[in-house]
């Protein structure tokens, strides 16, 4: 654990990881990445934990605005009064 990914090939892979996980990497690059992952445990862990990280924050419930915010806004912007 805690041994930084420093190998040249690993660093090259790291640059393209977001494109790869977003499905935006070209097929040839995907093949190259998957070939590297098959033989590099450290990078496999980085990819899996990065994918899990993305999954976790994308399924995080969004913070709800306070219920009073609408009334406060309408009042502050004088939108709660009838036009003269």
């Amino acid at each position, binding site marked *: 654990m805690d041994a930084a990914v420093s190998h040249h090939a690993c660093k090259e892979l790291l640059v393209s990881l977001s494109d790869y*996980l977003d499905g935006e990497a070209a097929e040839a690059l995907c093949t190259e990445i998957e070939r590297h992952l098959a033989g590099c445990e450290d990078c496999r862990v980085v990819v899996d934990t990065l994918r899990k990280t993305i999954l976790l924050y994308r399924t995080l419930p969004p913070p709800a605005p306070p219920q009073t915010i609408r009334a406060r806004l309408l009042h502050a912007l004088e939108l709660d009064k009838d036009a003269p």
Partner: protein
Amino acid sequence: MTKELPAPTLLSPELLDEAYEQRLLERIRAGDKTACAECIDLHSAGVYRLALRMVGDPHEAEDIVQETFLNAFRTIDSFEGRSSLSTWLYRITYNAALMRLRKKQPLHVSIDPHGDEEEAATTPVQLFDWCCLPEEDFQTAEARNELERAISELPEPLRAVFVLRELEGLSTEETAQALDLSVSNVKVRLHRARLWLRERLSGYFTELAQRSQARK
């Protein structure tokens, strides 16, 4: 092929309807108060979320929301429609939040996208595979708080990109417009934000996984 990840889904159908937005803008420009209220109903939640993620304080976030809509309605005639209304509102929100952050910490808020903190995050150090944890361990209140805390601690130059692109679901181009960045800069910052969060969360989940292994 890579396993598909769920897309952010906070955008409501009205936000994607250009014709509706055009009519709404015309009504706001004509001084229609109902249209202004409609605009608030449609956009205040997103504006609030960005403000909150930027400043971290719910009361201050509310103030920023108010400031944003005041500013937007006052200057609606200068809105040329080169971006969507929501992108423009996010831009006003971001600038308002940034002003407040700079007032509070003038020496700590950097506009340099290549800060030391971000650079450090581009090299993964945490290499323990915590994906083996049971799913319920990822869904606890503690795990969610940890994730929220990690997002709030993202270096400021990465945070707004991350929130707009990953949590609010804007496209790379829209995020670039909202934050006045190039498309490639948005991509770089998003990538760094993801790696930064992975690294930050790995500390917590690794400890959890190791504790769980030790109990077996």
